[in-house]
């Protein structure tokens, strides 16, 4: 036990003596929170719409007026030229083109169905679907309004309608900052722990200092624990800094137990550090470690459900996520912070994290060779 304390002391001395690292440890959580949390929002504020109204009757103006009235659409241009509209879409000046044909008002008044053409910039498929859905909604409301006014309502048709209302729990206004913050805390802890611990061990290999340690009777587990503990503590301090910034700057509510959050992050960190140390035994240079590490971080984060829901992934990817610690901590953080979920709600995820942490740490101890 004493030996581990000496090793830990040495790591801290080295970390804080390094002018760059000593500062980075405190700067990274601040920068990450302030940068990442407000940036990530998938909310579509408004869709730029270009209208080609060849009809110019009160009926067509009523339709475009309704579009203008919705906060979702912003009519950036009215034109008669289809080509101009296409050019605007090419140049990204509009995402939707609505084309109302000549004779629109006349035909509607006579009860003849009129096709209107909608062009959607579909490069971003999900945005395209959403904005098309909204536009379609406006058009259907327009239709229903005309029906309710009695225009063209066939005799004997009684209108039965199911109405829909909704509420969002845990995040009433669908504030993306509330959604992102727990996830960013996960990324923060992952990046700090993984990169610092991994680079640290590789650096000892590169500079040869590990050689002198290897001829001492230090036990493998002592060495690994001596490497893990400082970064575990640093990770948790960074978590505290990030959490404070998140709550006070962005007003993200905290429903659950802070203790539980730190406990689960500690387990998560042990897993991350174990993996980092395990991987660093393969790398010969810091450069190599950085690239493989960067790669793993990207895969972990993309598959964690931070940007896109886990449930939308194919089944095989969900299976892979069973060993992705980031997927667990993302869910756990969100559940604790936003939903106030307790130990009972999280016990399966926590258990999985404990297993992962144990497995990765064991791997690291096993792979670390004092004998070449």
């Amino acid at each position: 036990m004493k030996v581990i304390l000496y090793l830990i002391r040495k790591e801290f001395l080295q970390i804080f003596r390094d002018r760059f690292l000593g500062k980075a440890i405190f700067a990274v959580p601040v920068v990450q929170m302030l940068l990442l949390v407000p940036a990530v929002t998938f909310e579509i504020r408004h869709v730029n719409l270009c209208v080609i109204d060849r009809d110019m009757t009160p009926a067509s103006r009523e339709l475009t007026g309704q579009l203008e009235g919705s906060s979702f659409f912003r009519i950036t241009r009215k034109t008669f030229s289809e080509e101009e509209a296409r050019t605007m879409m090419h140049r990204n000046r509009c995402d939707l083109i609505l084309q109302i044909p000549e004779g629109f008002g006349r035909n509607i008044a006579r009860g003849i169905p009129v096709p209107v053409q909608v062009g959607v910039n579909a490069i971003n498929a999900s945005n395209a679907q959403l904005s098309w859905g909204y536009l379609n909604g406006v058009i259907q409301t327009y239709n229903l309004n005309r029906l309710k006014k009695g225009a063209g309502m066939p005799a004997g048709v009684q209108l039965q309608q199911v109405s829909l209302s909704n509420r969002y729990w845990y995040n009433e206004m669908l504030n993306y900052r509330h959604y992102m913050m727990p996830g960013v805390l996960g990324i923060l802890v992952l990046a700090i722990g993984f990169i610092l611990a991994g680079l640290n061990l590789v650096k000892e290999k590169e500079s040869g200092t590990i050689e002198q340690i290897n001829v001492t009777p230090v036990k493998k587990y002592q060495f690994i624990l001596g490497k893990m503990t400082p970064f575990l503590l640093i990770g948790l301090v960074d978590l505290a800094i990030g959490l404070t910034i998140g709550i006070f700057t962005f007003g993200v509510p905290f429903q659950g137990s802070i203790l539980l959050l730190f406990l689960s992050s500690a387990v998560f960190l042990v897993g991350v550090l174990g993996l980092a140390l395990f991987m660093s035994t393969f790398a010969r240079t810091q450069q190599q470690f950085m690239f493989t590490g960067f790669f793993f971080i990207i895969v972990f984060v993309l598959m964690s459900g931070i940007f896109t829901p886990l449930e939308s992934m194919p089944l095989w990817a969900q299976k892979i996520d069973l060993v992705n610690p980031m997927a667990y901590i993302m869910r756990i953080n969100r559940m604790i912070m936003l939903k106030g979920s307790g130990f009972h709600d999280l016990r399966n995820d926590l258990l999985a994290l404990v297993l992962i942490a144990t497995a990765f740490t064991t791997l690291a101890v096993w792979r670390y060779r004092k004998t070449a």
Partner: protein
Amino acid sequence: MTSREPVITVQNLVKRFGSFVANDNLNFEVYAGEIFGFLGANGAGKTTALRILSGLSAPTSGKVMVAGVDAGRNPERIKRNIGYMCQRFSLYEDLTVTENITLYGGIYGMKRNEIRGKTAALLERLQFGAYGNTLISALPLGLRQKLAFAVAVLHQPKIVFLDEPTGGVDPITRRQFWEMIYETAAGGITVFVTTHYMDEAEYCDRVSIMSEGKIVALDTPAALKKQYGVSSVEEVFVKIARPGQQLIP
């Protein structure tokens, strides 16, 4: 001052890396308290053998006993009884002299008081007093090497292995370094030193000369010189390591 009691016994030691034979059937003994010189050109297999003896590398075959422990089977138990100074300087450059000593003292399980006492004594003996709180990176090479040696024997091991300890060091510091080696040996610690400075070989109790993975000569410097009829170990070395000539005398 040397007894005839072996602390290192090597029998039929072979180390292969793939098809390359780094150590080809080595047999020798090192006696307690002696200064044993391990000579050879670069790539002769000195460091490989040294790493096996200190438990850093496993032998392919053969029997290696170090301080009564089998190096092949139980490398970790050896490490308690030995000190080791790498060819490449490997103390922490971003720690101070005292911090390095404290760290290694702690790793070897020394008590806090003991470490403190030893550190003071060590700084005193090396005339390092002013350098206690200096970062290693600011130390000149000669001082670094002395410190590395001091750290290697900090825990009073039975044997200390020195891998080319005086490489790149100026003659005066080399001289001081060898004085430290003598002191250490006088204190009862067996010194196993590799070098390619032939004048240093003269200071050893016994030397072995390695060439292409084999030990081609092993005796006291005086006996070797007499056997080859020359006046220095250097000439012995040149004679047996000369290409195209049968090595085994």
